[in-house]
């Protein structure tokens, strides 16, 4: 049976009728399968949640232990069933605990890939190519202008800036879940072993990463620094919303750095008032999207949240049937943490 008859979108999200569950629903539902912990995919208050153990831990950290009445840990690669629908979670390579979900029903296989990327990420296993009839892919960076440079290049820019402006506090805007930790690890890999200072919003999730044995080195909350002047020449990481906020005014001689896939576009970087834009993303760039479609080689590609037009056009050019799947509520950046 063709998936378009049993997997549908409504105002709450993506609903699998025969299985009776939603995937990444926006509002409280009876049964939710959650691909990863970003706030626009993982909401609190469901009756029953299925997700990876890391994702459940992230949700508990954010929403409290009782974020859902029943919390089921899934094992990646193991199939579970909902009525006649078989469900298997596979790694997506997006952030800690991120997954894609394979649904099998009446001879059809559909993969909901969630948010994913194909680059190496030390905090999660790599994206697995899962053969299927229909691939639902995101298109956050679904334009050929988006080609993310290697993360090492971007980290070099930051370290170079620290050498050129040794008296300026380098305030880096990075989303609290995923981006922040990846940035810290990349800095450590590049040989930066000084303490890194954190805005309050980053603390809990960094602690959580460390509980999962991901070494982030010495981290110090900015609130524990008595004399803020001592932060001159140091790296402070804060959520993007705090960059131009009152909070940042206590920091000495700030150089505004912003880590995001959007930073590739000058106007976007300017809008953010980023003096030093770092192109670091937890999503696929254009070549990765095309590579994934080729490798998965589905019969159809459904494209969601992002610049669908270009990716659909390209998928059709490559010989795949393509359609847009409009899902509500997935915020490009502010929530989603690209």
């Amino acid at each position, binding site marked *: 049976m063709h998936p378009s008859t049993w997997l549908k979108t409504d105002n709450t999200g993506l609903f699998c009728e025969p299985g009776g569950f939603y995937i990444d629903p926006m509002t409280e539902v009876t049964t939710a399968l959650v691909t990863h912990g970003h706030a626009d995919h993982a909401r609190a208050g469901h009756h029953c949640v299925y997700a990876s153990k890391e994702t459940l831990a992230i949700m508990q950290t954010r929403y409290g232990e009782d974020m859902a009445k029943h919390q089921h840990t899934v094992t990646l690669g193991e199939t579970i069933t909902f009525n006649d629908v078989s469900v298997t979670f596979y790694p997506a390579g997006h952030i800690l605990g991120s997954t894609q979900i394979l649904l099998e029903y009446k001879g059809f296989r559909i993969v909901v890939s969630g948010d994913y990327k194909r680059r190496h990420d030390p905090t999660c296993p790599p994206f697995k190519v899962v053969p299927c009839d229909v691939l639902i892919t995101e298109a956050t960076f679904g*334009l050929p202008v988006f080609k993310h440079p290697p993360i090492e290049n971007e980290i070099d820019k930051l370290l170079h800036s620290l050498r050129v402006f040794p008296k300026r506090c380098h305030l880096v805007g990075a989303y609290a879940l995923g981006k922040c930790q990846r940035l810290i690890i990349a800095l450590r890999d590049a040989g930066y072993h000084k303490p890194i200072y954190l805005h309050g919003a980053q603390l809990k999730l960094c602690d959580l990463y460390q509980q999962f044995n991901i070494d982030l080195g010495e981290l110090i909350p900015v609130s524990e620094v008595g004399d803020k002047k001592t932060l001159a020449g140091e790296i402070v990481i804060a959520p993007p919303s705090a960059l131009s906020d009152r909070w940042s005014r206590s920091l000495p001689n700030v150089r505004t750095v912003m880590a995001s896939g959007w930073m590739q576009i000058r106007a976007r970087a300017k*809008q953010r008032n980023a*003096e030093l834009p770092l192109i670091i993303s937890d999503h696929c760039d254009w070549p990765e999207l095309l590579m994934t479609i080729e490798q998965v080689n589905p019969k159809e590609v459904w494209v969601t949240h992002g610049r669908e037009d270009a990716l659909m056009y390209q998928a059709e050019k490559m010989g795949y049937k393509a359609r847009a799947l409009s899902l509500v509520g997935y915020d490009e950046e502010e929530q989603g943490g690209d």
Partner: protein
Amino acid sequence: MEAFSDLLEQLYYTAGNKAKAQLIADYIANTPDPDRGWAIAAMAGTLRFDFFKRNTVKKLIAEHTDPQLFAMSYDYVGEVSETVAHLWPHSEAVSPLPSLHSIVDTFANVAKQQVSKTLADYLTMMTPSQRWALLKLGTRGLRIGVSARSIKQILADYGNKDIKEIETLWHAVTPPYTQLLQWLEGKADKPDIENAVTFHPVMLSHPIEESDIDGFEPGMWQIENKYDGIRVQLAVNTEKTIQKISSDNTEESDIEKALFSRTGDDISHSFPDLLEHMQGNMVLDGELLVIQNASEEAKESLASIAPPKVDTFNALQQRLNKKKPAKSLMQSNPVGLIVYDALVLEGEQLTSLTLQERRKKLAAWIEHKKIPRVFLSNTLEASSPQELRQLHSRVCANRSVEGLMLKRLDSTYVPGRPKGKWFKWKRDPLVVDAVIMYAQRGHGKRSSFYSDFTFGAWQGEQLLPIGKAYSGFTDEELKKLDNWVRRNAIGRFGPVREVKKELVFEVAFDAVHPSNRHKSGVALRFPRIHRIRWDKPANEADTLEALKQLIER
């Protein structure tokens, strides 16, 4: 090329003039000739030719990428150069890249049919940000927020010279400015510019004080209208003898006539109608205005006899910043020059003469030459402080005049702003009570505070934006306003916050003009916040109708 591209990249993202100046100074200090001179030319807008046309770039990318994908990308990115820089599909990195000089040189000499191929080869060698730099450079479209004036200041600081020296030299030297730069570093002689047409730094006035008016002594002052145009300097030398063959200074410019703004920017290209008739060897100081009878008089060479019919500043504004003005625009808005001083006449330097002597020579010269579109500024009389005040209010009734100028008859022409020599007495500003509608964070010292405001006037129940302003607050007020915006924001458009329509500003401005660009149909000239009316209810602010009553003529 790498260093230039890095510089542009950093300038693009760096806020604040000081930081930008620092980056440019570092670049100049660390980059060899002639590359750095070409970079300066690119930033100051003195490159003489486009390397390639925008159309060449568009055609080239259409040949190398899928047009649909390009269109979708361009729609998102919003700028051709950047879209091309990212989408260029070929990459064979070359290190090091050819120098900036060799790229300039290549495009200067390449055959027309080879331009596109040459550009393609360069794009293939480069990273996206280097491609962007090349495309911006090649179409002379650098927008890095550094004015030509700032570049001159940076050069002056670099060589520890007075900016006036740079301004004087600037138009007499050409890129890549090798001798100029080496002179700044003490490694070469100052460029010789004796015969060149160049900008002479101008003499400026102080705002008049009450005590100056009270102490007014008749007979000591030349009184003139303060015209509402732009101050310009017309420099002409069509009588250059070709005698500088021994020239080791190959960078000397061969320009015969030029029109400069008061800060020394060359604005000749916008006013070919004024320049075409100029002959001789002179430097005139005057006001550029739209003068309605200028062109018709030109035909009959009667210009200096009939009084000029001066149009509004708004009419002049349409002529400013046009790279190549349309013929129809030059006919509908013909420009002319009202001359009030002369630095050079018939090749003779006059700056050490008194104003009285200069004026006598200037009047006789204009009378004799009858140059089309050139008028002598008329002088006014007052025999007491009281008469002077009366004169001021009479003059200000005429909206094409901005007030009065008072200049000491015994003053020599001194560049800069010498004390007690020249005064300007502007008319009182107009004011309107307007309601703030939108706020945006400022830059530099105002950054992170909401300090740029859009305000509107009432049309019935609706507020229509009439202008934008950011100056006129104390630091204390700035904090209070920032706080008010945060508490009263109701919407967001990118960096712009919409606020509750509750707070009234008293906005001062110099004039109001009709405008098709704004929904309100009006545009204010030089609006600034005069007072914050915390006390005034928004519904008592002014109406658009009341504002329209103030439109000139």
